[in-house]
């Protein structure tokens, strides 16, 4: 168990945004949180990322209580996030953005007089992440000049550059054209595998993405967990599908998932966990030898 929420409540005055939400994210899982507007998804993300303290219940990450501990502290513990509305540094280049994440992770921020440009590890790790997200050719482009899709990728890439154990993606494909959505997800899932992430949580509205990539789907409705099941189980539940998806998934639902998620043998297989972060999988070093040489 990496991340666990137990009976989490969150009130805004008299309004109950989260009403006893319990969930658990296990090693190697790709979990999607879905639900209509007002279901409590944003509040749940803010509670899971330590921004908001729960009004009741507990949130634990790696066996530590993380309720309201704040973004910076949680980042240090190994959780990263990206945002629904793309967040970039307009006047920084792509490479500088990734360097900032590496600098932060290595704890180099208080080096007042060190030269950033000649710090080999910061340079090489930032370039490696740029390559994983197909941004290497734009490394020296100012972020504000990037097309929207690349901005979104960079937002996610910079969170990956923190080499987190778990990442929380808030609508990773929002603002990305329909044609590019799967490409973005492929890059993202590929990068997660290569970097040895232990789990991914995403909040997503696009049901093709949700059903295509998730090992498990958690459906929220009016601040409560309505369903916590595999995509196949969820599709079989007509009532829940109507409430949270708003429609029955048609032909796509019956076809097999087009993309395997985090687990190598396909979705729903959490028996074979990903290698733990940092140590890497000996059979699949990161970065691969071939790439390093090239």
């Amino acid at each position, binding site marked *: 168990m990496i991340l666990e929420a137990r009976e989490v409540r969150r009130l805004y005055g008299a309004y109950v945004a989260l009403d006893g939400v319990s969930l658990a994210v296990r090693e190697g899982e790709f979990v999607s949180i879905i639900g209509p507007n007002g279901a409590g998804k944003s509040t749940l993300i803010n509670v899971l990322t330590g921004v908001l303290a729960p009004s009741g219940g507990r949130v634990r990450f790696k066996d530590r209580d993380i309720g309201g501990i704040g973004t910076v502290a949680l980042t240090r513990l190994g959780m990263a996030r990206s945002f629904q509305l793309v*967040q970039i540094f307009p006047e920084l280049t792509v490479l500088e953005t990734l360097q900032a994440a590496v600098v932060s992770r290595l704890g180099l921020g208080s080096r*007042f007089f060190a030269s*950033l440009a000649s*710090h080999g590890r910061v340079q090489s790790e930032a370039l490696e992440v740029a390559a994983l997200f197909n941004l290497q050719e734009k490394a020296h482009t100012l972020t504000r000049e990037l097309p929207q899709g690349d901005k979104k990728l960079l937002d996610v890439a910079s969170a990956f550059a*923190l080499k987190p154990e778990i990442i929380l993606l808030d609508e990773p494909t929002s603002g990305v054209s329909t044609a590019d959505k799967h490409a973005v997800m492929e890059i993202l899932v590929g990068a997660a595998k290569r970097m040895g992430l232990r789990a991914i949580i995403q909040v997503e509205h696009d049901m093709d993405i949700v059903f295509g990539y998730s090992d498990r789907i958690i459906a929220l409705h009016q601040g409560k967990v309505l369903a916590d099941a595999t995509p196949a189980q969820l599709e079989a539940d007509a009532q829940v599908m109507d409430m949270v998806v708003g429609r029955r998934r048609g032909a796509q639902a019956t076809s097999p998932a087009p993309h395997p998620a985090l687990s190598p043998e396909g979705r729903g297989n959490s028996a074979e966990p990903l290698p733990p972060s940092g140590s890497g999988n000996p059979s699949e070093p990161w970065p691969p030898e071939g790439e390093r040489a090239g």
Partner: protein
Amino acid sequence: MRTTVVLALVAVAIVALPLVAPAYYVTLMLPFMAYGVVLLGLNLLFGYTGLVSFGHALFIGIGAYTAAMLTTRFGIRQMELILLAAALAAAVVAAPVGALCVRYVKIYFGMLTLAFGMVFYTFLLKFYKLTGGDEGMRMLRPHLLGQSWEGLSKTAYLVGPYYYFSLGALVLATLLMWRIVRSPFGLCLRTIRDNPLKAESLGVSVPRFRWYAFMISAVYAAVGGALLATPTGNVDPTLAYWTHSGNIVFMVLLGGFASFFGPLLGAFVFIFLQDAVMSVFPYWRLVFGAVLALLVIFAPSGLMGLFARRLPVEVSRA
């Protein structure tokens, strides 16, 4: 390459200036160099961290009064020691003031720094026995590099040893700041300037880094203030008055806060333009007000922004 050539030419001109220019213009370079140090620090906060302080004259005042007090009350005349003490005094004051101010951003940060500046101004004005009230205090001639330079007249001292000492201090301050803005720390400051929410999500502790930047800029302002005290000869509370804070923000805007050397250009143009305008027209603030308005409307990136845009065109024509 172009920058290196321009810098080398400027360096040669500044070093050679006392040998060729009239003493009057050479002495005008002294406040330029003192303000240069102040503005390098102010721009770490403004251009690199995105915080506009309207109270930085507070730290110029601390530097200048530390220098004057050490020479007149304590008989300490070594300029190196004076600069060190000014930096320490500023750090001691900036630590709590900065810790409070950096919790706020934009206009609230500006107003809070302004408020602290005015508190200090009133302190200087009212604590007559300690500060000399509105008359201020004399700044005695400091010793430089262990020498008293007693044999020199005041002008000879200022355009000779003191000129080169100030230049040395400015060069050192510039080199240090050049390292700072190109360090991992400098990168973290720029992430905070561009997007504090995103910076925090990358693990950058926004208040802590803003506080570091505030401390460094306060130390720079105090060192500049101490350097300014000698050519001024007498330090008084107007050094810490809010219009003085406004002037240095104006200098940064004039030169261009987006460029490393912009503020230095701003200080240079401000001082020489002020002198030129005052010699023909007593209402220099009227002219400067018009300049500021034109600047904001037509050249928000300052003089450096104009050069940067013009130069490639000229090069392509050549």
